[in-house]
């Protein structure tokens, strides 16, 4: 049962990258701000803050969502995976390595969101062709225009048959 004992505040218990976190927050706090401001997980980026760019993409119960339009309160009792959770022991996820190999970024601001989205894309089995990759990655914008290299990185891992951690 969600809800506040204190006016305007909410208690949230959430698994973040496999670790249980319990926070008492202003009810207006988004999942994105909870991660960045309260848990100091700054890998997840704030681009537009209005659902339009995908920079803030994380996995919620295994499905990709934009964390800027999700309330922290909505995540109570659920599991969140961020870019930090892909390389828990410091060993990079195959997609992270592929992005480096293919030069899948310039400034890097969109990259965490691209990679989280791509992890979900592979799990959804929607990386069957370049056209399919482009269509189902379209929620992640890249102002530097690294798209061809992003597609190449995803294609490589898809052809190797997955890349789920």
């Amino acid at each position, binding site marked *: *049962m*969600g*809800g*506040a004992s204190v*006016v*305007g505040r*909410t208690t949230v218990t959430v698994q973040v990258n496999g670790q249980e976190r319990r926070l008492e927050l*202003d*009810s*207006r706090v*988004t999942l994105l701000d909870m991660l960045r401001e309260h848990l100091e997980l700054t890998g997840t980026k704030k681009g537009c*803050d*209005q*659902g339009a760019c*995908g920079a803030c*993409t994380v996995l*919620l119960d295994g*499905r*990709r*969502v*934009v964390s800027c*339009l*999700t*309330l922290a*309160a*909505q995540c*109570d009792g659920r599991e969140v995976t961020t870019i930090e959770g892909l390389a828990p022991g410091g060993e990079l996820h195959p997609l992270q390595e592929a992005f480096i190999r293919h030069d899948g970024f310039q400034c890097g601001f969109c990259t965490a969101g691209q990679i989280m*989205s791509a992890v*979900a*894309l592979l799990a*959804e089995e*929607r990386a069957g062709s370049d056209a399919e990759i*482009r*269509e*189902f990655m*379209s*929620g*992640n914008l890249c102002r530097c225009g690294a798209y061809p290299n992003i597609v190449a990185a995803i294609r490589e891992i898809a052809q190797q048959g997955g890349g789920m951690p």
Partner: protein
Amino acid sequence: MSVLEYRRPEQVAEAIALVSADPGAAYLAGGTTQLDLLLKDGVVEYGTLVDIGRLPLRGTSVVDGVLRVGAVTTMEELAADAVVIERLPMVREALLSGASTQLRNMATIGGNLLQRTRCRYFRDRAVAACNKRAPGSGCAAVRGPARMHAILGAGENCIALHASDLCVALVALDAVVGIEGPDGQRSVPLTEFYVMPGERPDVENVLAHGEMITHVDVPLPAAGLRAQYVKVRDRASYEFALVSAAAALRIEEGAITEARLALGGVGTVPWRAWAAEDLLRGRQADEANFRAAAEVALRDPYTVPGTEFKVGLAQRLIVRTLKYVSGAQT
């Protein structure tokens, strides 16, 4: 907005009671419209959000040839539904043409029906004239640059578009909205659910405060109906429609025995092109008749300089989509 109460009741009746009793309360489903308008644009104000995302209104069932879709089923879940894939491919096309995978994982079917307009004057608090946001203040869009705006059902008081893709397919298929309020349940055909702006652009549909959409019923068409949803937009993907069409034809011995046509990107409400359907029924499935249907579908538009192009674009899209579903070469 200074203080926000977040509530997540476990029962439908409890959620309805909470919102009904409090004029400052509103439902929160996926949040992709609600949180944007409340926390980011600051153009709506609520003291309490009642989260309905985990209510037992999720998933689908088929009863007597009708697909019942729970209101908090997400767009991605519905697009992956086996019955939708097999029997309602046009609904799947409309769903997957909307927003991004991330947003579709969050956005619910009830929320999609109730999404607010993308009119940028409505979403900008610095703009004073917006009859939808501030009744009686005028309409900045009819005088200022407009593009993503409506040309049908529009008037000088408001040209705001209903931007849903899904709803275009659903009005074409005679979907029915299941509603529950403090006084019980009712059903309203989706074609009668929305209210055109007229003198009151702030009133968008027939829901009373506190009434909840619990489900949407979609009658499953009999085999042989060919249907397609086509969306024309400024980008190849992840963009709202400039114009879209949901068209379905049943053709027996060359003659059209069933015609369904709805339009997106042009209406203040998801637009059912009744007159075009009447014209097509009983006629030959040929290009001359498709052109005539396109003509009547766009009769009497209300355009401003930025939206004039939509008339011709919509007509060409109608002809192209009808040709495709008729099986003709395009």
